[in-house]
């Protein structure tokens, strides 16, 4: 391929995906932009945000590509049945998502404390991470199963759907879940 062909093909292929996931990012940003009161009430919350969103991306991106490969190999059927493989892949995604969120909250607390910066109590951050991780996890599992299985049944290659779905839905639902979890944590404090 000539340089020009590489550019045209690469640009056309990537632009729609980038724009769709930018739209997701903007909606997530709209939620974050409206969280003035919560950021004030939970010092350290903003520090957790990038890690929290990145964990969603990695965990559910990995679940999506696992399901997608398994469909191609005929290991799972393209409809939701309480199949052992499917259940354990979903359980592993949820557990890893929760575990990593808890790690993020704990490190945020430890680092900010060590730096002498203002930080919310550990249990507040941990509660937000767990509730937010669980809420986002349940929604994202549903979105991924529907998109990957639905796309496959319609004759699409789920490999091409996983990336954009996870980045877009992960940002929106990740941020929304963090917002709801923070309100909840503040309500019980």
């Amino acid at each position: 391929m000539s340089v020009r062909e590489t550019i045209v093909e690469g640009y056309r292929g990537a632009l729609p995906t980038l724009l769709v996931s930018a739209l997701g990012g903007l909606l997530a940003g709209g939620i974050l932009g409206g969280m003035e009161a919560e950021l004030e009430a939970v010092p350290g919350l903003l520090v957790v945000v990038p890690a929290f969103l990145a964990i969603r991306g990695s965990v559910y991106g990995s679940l999506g590509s696992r399901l997608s490969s398994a469909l191609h190999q005929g290991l799972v059927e393209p409809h939701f049945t309480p199949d052992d493989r499917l259940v354990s892949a979903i359980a592993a995604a949820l557990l890893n998502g929760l575990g990593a969120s808890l790690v993020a909250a704990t490190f945020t607390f430890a680092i900010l404390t060590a730096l002498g910066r203002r930080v919310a109590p550990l249990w507040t951050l941990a509660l937000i991470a767990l509730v937010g991780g669980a809420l986002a996890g349940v929604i994202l599992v549903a979105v991924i199963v529907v998109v990957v299985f639905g796309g496959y049944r319609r004759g699409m290659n789920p490999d091409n759907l996983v990336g954009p779905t996870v980045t877009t839905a992960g940002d929106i639902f990740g941020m929304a879940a963090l917002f709801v979890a923070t309100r909840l944590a503040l309500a019980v404090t």
Partner: protein
Amino acid sequence: MASDWSVSGITRRLFPILVALTLLELVGGLTLGSFEATLRRYPSLLVLVPVTIGTAGNLGSVLSARLSTAFHLGILSFDVTDDELLGNTITTVLLAVTVFPVVGAGAWAVARVTGGARLPVETVVAVASISGLVLAVLAVAVTVTAAYTAYRFEADPDDVVIPVVTNVCDVLGVIVLFGVVRVIVT
């Protein structure tokens, strides 16, 4: 292959990577924390945060997926005159130059709807566009370095390069945004 799908099997492979990327992302988080006051004063900049991180990571992951494929196909050489490398570098810059001004205008509009557009639209567009251009250049540098390192160590670029590049670009997204906001806004 059955054990491949067990909760413990998946966790053994996934969790160490998650912890490593969490620590990396906290560098971005701490950077955000250090200009939290500015971000909260101007909600349109706060709106820019997830989308800048996401788009920077996406630019890196698109480029690394393409370089990875070119590498598997044997059509990539790590030479500055390589057509594949040059073409993909230009594509990344063009994509950034297209998407980031839209992102800036979008962030301003979202902040305006949610009642917090205190910065003029041209300032937000300028912050997004300059950040985007710097990020495109950095994304290329990071991706090429990571792909070259994988190639030297004979690792499969698909396994290592994409997660590393995506998360490094996420963090760079925040750091570049911080730098540009300091120069333009404060």
